């Protein structure tokens, strides 16, 4: 079965997925629709051979487990051969530059590379300096477009739609590539977004178009239809962004009680892995309101849609 039979290609044919910021509402919705469809077909055990005969390289030059596994499953589910090009033992680990490594890969015949890199903007460099098709699997503190797609898919499933939905994002936005990509996707899809966190963790976001910065957890959560909390990097506390993790948990940590400030029954999301007891309580993370498990499931479908549409 060809992929064209599954869904039409998006309005503009795109060679790379570097971020979601260039995607129109129609393109975003096409990704989500295709992801939902592929999720169903995969669940029914259908064989989807859209990438049969293609080799997809996994270049995770920064440690990652769930995103890498999710991309591998997605590529295999579409029939692709998956080549692991990750850092340990690779030429990048031996000091070769990113551009040289990718140019070498290109000569081996690999056409698509899923790239995770610690530097903001690395996928743009890769796309500009090689003929490879680049899928950004997270770059520095800049973007994580497939995480945004899977989160938006999860939200759309639960809320029925995002137009006018009130979404709260709480935590360290400054250091979050997930948050940046989500803001683009949510604003484009018509959601009303409020963000909150300690001052050093939301610095600069007051100027982000289409969103509001809340000064307290209560103000961030008030009336929210869904709440996304972000991972607090444990070393940030030492950097002075907050005096201590305990103080963060006291002021901004999400608990079942505090979720009462949001709309009744509002779900909570987290991109994982969680620091339970810091940004989210163990009880809330494992409660029925938590969509963390569904996020992981949707990750494969969202990434299948991305790979399929780029190859369409």
């Amino acid at each position, binding site marked *: 079965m060809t992929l064209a039979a599954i869904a039409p290609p998006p309005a503009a044919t795109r060679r790379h997925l570097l971020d979601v910021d260039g995607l129109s509402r129609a393109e975003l919705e096409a990704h989500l629709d295709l992801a939902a469809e592929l999720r169903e077909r995969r669940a029914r055990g259908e064989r989807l051979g859209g990438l049969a005969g293609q080799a997809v390289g996994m270049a995770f030059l920064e440690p990652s487990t769930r995103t890498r596994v999710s991309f591998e499953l997605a590529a295999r589910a579409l029939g692709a051969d998956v080549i692991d090009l990750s850092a340990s033992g690779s030429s990048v680990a031996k000091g070769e530059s990113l551009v040289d490594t990718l140019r070498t890969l290109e000569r081996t015949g690999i056409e698509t590379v899923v790239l995770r890199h610690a530097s903001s903007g690395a996928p743009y460099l890769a796309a500009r300096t090689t003929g490879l098709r680049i899928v950004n699997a997270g770059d*520095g503190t800049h973007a994580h477009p497939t995480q945004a797609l899977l989160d938006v898919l999860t939200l759309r499933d639960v809320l029925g739609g995002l137009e006018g939905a009130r979404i709260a994002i709480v935590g360290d936005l400054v250091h979050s590539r997930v948050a940046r990509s989500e803001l683009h996707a949510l604003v484009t899809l018509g959601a009303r977004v409020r963000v909150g966190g300690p001052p050093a963790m939301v610095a600069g976001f007051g100027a982000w178009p289409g969103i509001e910065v809340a000064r307290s957890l209560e103000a961030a959560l008030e009336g929210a239809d869904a709440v996304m909390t972000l991972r607090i990097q444990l070393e940030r506390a030492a950097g002075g962004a907050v005096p201590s993790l305990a103080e963060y948990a006291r002021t901004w940590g999400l608990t079942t009680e505090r979720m009462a400030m949001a709309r009744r029954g509002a779900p909570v999301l987290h991109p994982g892995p969680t620091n339970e007891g810091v940004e989210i309580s163990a009880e809330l993370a494992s409660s029925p309101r938590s969509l963390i498990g569904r996020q992981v499931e949707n990750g494969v479908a969202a990434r299948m849609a991305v790979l399929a549409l780029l190859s369409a």
Partner: protein
Amino acid sequence: MTDGLGRFGSIADEPASLLLRGARVVDPTTGRDEVGDVAIDGGVVVAVLRDGARIIDATGWVVAPAFCDLHAHLRQPGGEEAEDVASGTRAAAHSGYATVCAMPNTDPPLDTPAQVAAVLAAGAGAASRVRVVGAATRGRSGAMLADLAALHDAGVVAVSDDGAAIRSARLARSLLAYLAPLGLALFEHAEDATLAAGTLLRGGPTATRLGLPAWPVSAEVTIVERDIALAEETGARLHLTHLSSAAGLDAVRRAKERGLPVTCDVTPHHLALADTWAAGERRWAWEQDPEATDAPPVDAELAYDANLRVNPPLASVRDAQALLDGLADGTIDAIATDHAPHPPQRKLVPWDEAAPGMIGLETALGIGLAAVAAGRLRLPALLAALGDRPARIIGESRSLAIGQPADLVAFDPGASWRVERASLTSRSVNTPLLGRELRGVVRLTVVGGRVTYDATAGG
């Protein structure tokens, strides 16, 4: 359209005898601005030529005092892959400069009289005069003062730990106190290392959008204010180099109003480019909206060009416009290029791995003329900021008056050229302006009467 390169000469050549006829002669020092002739002979500007002198039709060109760059990284010793004294001075001559000041953050640094002498010796037959800025501290480590009187005797024109500020306020105070009786200025890279640590782009909507850690303007202002207070207390001369913020400029303006011996320069890229370029914006800073609160759209082809990573980082549009106003009103004394050549492997890397800096000698005039063409700067003010005003900071001067040393540039302000490998003389090409057309083609550079660059028809 792109003119081929002309011929290079040396400051050790015989003085030329020539007449530039029919140019717009702009001498900010004397206030002369008229169509006329300039004659040189025996190394000086003369009124009457002897027979047999070369006559150059300079109709449509501008003839002005040659330029002086207070801040260039010539990379010798230790960084010759990117530039050396010979290639850097040729890039200078190609662009109208008679003098370049070599900064001391070489490998090893220029912190001893022997190091200074080696660079001066390399400049003896170069295409422009080489002056040396000595390191202020041993090894530029910020721990102990260099032997400053010995460096002074070796001929340094100033001292600096450029690349970083003098880290400790206490050492900065000792340094300025010691420099005061020597009459040497500190060329200060005003940036607090603790505030700047780990940052990658000026704080603002573009940095937020691109996920690049935000450099706060306070990193510059705190050192500017600190050093002004220390200069006032010690009576030393303070020169703030590559100033990049309106707030830093305001502090300098207030110091000048109090009569303190404080001067400053700005780079072409802090005047004309802006943080927005990191996302893909390519309009000059003065063409952009200073009130814009949103980042420009991220352009996948242009975003994160590591050639835009400089230190201090590119200014906000508002600050860049304030700096241009400060240049126009004279608060800023000079344009200095911070010419910072790097080999490709230091720039064809992700933004955070890239070495900071861009080349600047060969694009300074073109950027300045773009500001003039936009009506943001008068030509004499531009030429003063490139020539006489920086020259005075290091004890030189520039004038086209009869009897003065013949340091002059002739350029065609209407001709344009494309910035590309073939049109650049620097060994390095790390500039975000590659591919762009700039107005202003230098036809002739003369240093002390010697023709160091000649792209005239008969040259």
